[in-house]
């Protein structure tokens, strides 16, 4: 068995003395693991950092084997992003989120979204907003998508300002008025209305966090990843600095 392609590195684990188990997100084959011979050595280790994109060839005798990768860096992001705590949280959180997907199950939308987020990883407002979008896409791909296209009460498609925690559907400003304290605020950037502010980003994280907790983390016995807590804190810190 053999295939070649590109993949985003989600993480590496040491295997024996000199080898590494590389975890990639590929467009056509989803999350894919394989051994890199010499991957823990001084020559390969700097290249196999989470956040980098690599061109790989995977080989195995049978499809169900772990197999081996030969890898060459295509885009080296990690070294530049390491100086930014926000970017490191983004790299780690993308790994944590994409690890929720089953292995070898293609999710091209999430693959593309992860690349877009990484390309803006050092700007808290932009990275935060993109991460909220990625989390919405993740919920959708896992079968728990929200419906933000129209108001759950009136069917209207404009002036959508809130989201119902019960149904996961958008609610218009007028319909939300009597229940506003029990609904989530819909960030303006998700309604396609205006640029993202850091307050909107935090609203977005609160919204996706609730549904991820209820439908994904809770069901798997895990909790909000440390990287997400860190990214939210960095966003809040940035908002305080901007005031």
């Amino acid at each position: 068995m053999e295939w070649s392609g590109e993949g985003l590195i989600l993480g590496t684990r040491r295997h024996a003395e000199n080898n590494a188990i590389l975890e990639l997100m590929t467009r056509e084959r989803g999350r894919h693991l394989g051994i890199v011979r010499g991957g823990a050595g001084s020559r390969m280790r700097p290249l196999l950092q989470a956040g980098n994109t690599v061109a790989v060839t995977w080989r195995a005798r049978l499809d169900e084997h772990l197999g081996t990768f030969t890898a060459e860096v295509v885009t080296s992001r990690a070294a530049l992003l390491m100086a930014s705590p926000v970017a490191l949280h983004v790299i780690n959180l993308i790994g944590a989120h994409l690890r929720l997907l089953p292995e070898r199950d293609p999710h091209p939308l999430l693959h593309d979204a992860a690349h877009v987020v990484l390309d803006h990883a050092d700007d808290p407002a932009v990275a935060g907003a993109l991460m909220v979008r990625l989390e919405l896409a993740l919920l959708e791909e896992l079968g728990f998508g929200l419906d933000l296209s129209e108001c759950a009460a009136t069917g209207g498609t404009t002036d959508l300002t809130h989201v119902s925690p019960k149904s996961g559907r958008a609610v218009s400003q007028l319909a939300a008025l009597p229940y506003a304290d029990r609904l989530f605020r819909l960030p303006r950037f998700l309604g396609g209305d205006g640029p993202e502010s850091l307050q909107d980003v935090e609203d977005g994280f609160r919204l996706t966090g609730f549904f991820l907790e209820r439908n994904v983390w809770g069901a798997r016995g895990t909790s909000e990843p440390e990287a997400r807590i860190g990214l939210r804190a960095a966003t809040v810190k940035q908002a305080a600095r901007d005031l």
Partner: protein
Amino acid sequence: MSNRRVAGPEIERLIQLLAKVPGLGPRSARRAALALVKKREALMVPLAAAMTEAAAKIVVCSNCGNIDTLDPCSICRDERRDPGLLLVVKDVSDLWALERSGVVQSRYHVLGGTLSALDGIGPKDLSLDRLVARAAEGSVKEVVLALDATVDGQTTAHYVTDLLAGLPVKVSRLAQGVPIGGELDYLDEGTLAAALKARTPM
């Protein structure tokens, strides 16, 4: 291939154990065992005694996390070291590497790993409370984060920086860039980019 034993169970067990030492495989373990057997009095017996003694006496320093036969360790006891400079390292092997270089006369703090979501290592698994307590003692003026230039290492470095933010200590980290003797042609793009970003005036 034949899987016949060439020696008695005691020697086979010695080979098996030696093969678990980093850097030794089954073949090199066999060679090492043979060398030990041949130099039984000169090497094997003293080595066994040294290992037994070390195994009985080795303790983890309750102050810095270093491995020594004393608690506090020899480094923490050394009064010639600068008490104002605290180097934070991932593991004892990093501490030994810095000590080999002989460039600093500082004290150390061994974290015991780096944060890693993949390996399930969180803040509670690292010696962070003790680090904060040491940094808050008053004698420490600067904390140098001598951690790996990897995503996990730098995530830990930023986490520690946040933890120490409220204390009156300077927090710095090691420089990143072109290694001594390194030829640009052979460096990876990431290292080159980091080196350019951290360039210094001549």
